[in-house]
């Protein structure tokens, strides 16, 4: 699954009484750790300093929750490491 497409979206109900400008499409991330279940041993790891920045030791669990701007900009250069 491509990194940029693990976001799922939904459309909240927008009330006419809503005081603020409505957010039509809400987005949430479904990172890999939701689907892995019991973590298999021997997964590929980040080096220590990169792990500190990434927030996880294992590459497959890295989920930076890119904002929409970063997603658009990032789609040209796939930046895997933090």
């Amino acid at each position, binding site marked *: 699954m491509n990194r940029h497409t693990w976001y799922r979206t939904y459309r909240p109900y927008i009330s006419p009484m809503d005081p603020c400008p409505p957010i039509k499409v809400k987005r949430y991330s479904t990172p890999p750790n939701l689907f892995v279940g*019991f*973590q298999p*041993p*021997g997964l590929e790891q980040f080096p*220590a*300093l990169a*792990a*500190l920045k990434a927030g*996880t*030791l*294992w590459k497959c669990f890295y989920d930076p929750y890119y904002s929409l701007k970063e997603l658009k900009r990032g789609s040209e250069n796939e930046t895997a490491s933090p």
Partner: protein
Amino acid sequence: MKQLPPEYYSELEEIQAADFVIVELALYLHTHPDDLDAIKQYNEYVKLSKSLKKAFERKYGALTSFGYSFARCPFDYKEAPWPWQV
């Protein structure tokens, strides 16, 4: 007020990275107690963290007090910079 040398920050980041790996592996080992590679890596990083801290504390003073680090004379643990000022 003495300014900290730049390598203070890089050495501190090394320690933080080593400790982060230790935390991650410890949590992993809670659910995978017999994963030998992870245990080896964990012990390797504990050794690394101890040596990094020892070298760091010899240069810049105690990282922790209340018995986790040796004190210097005069006792300078209370001196600036405090952790949030670094």
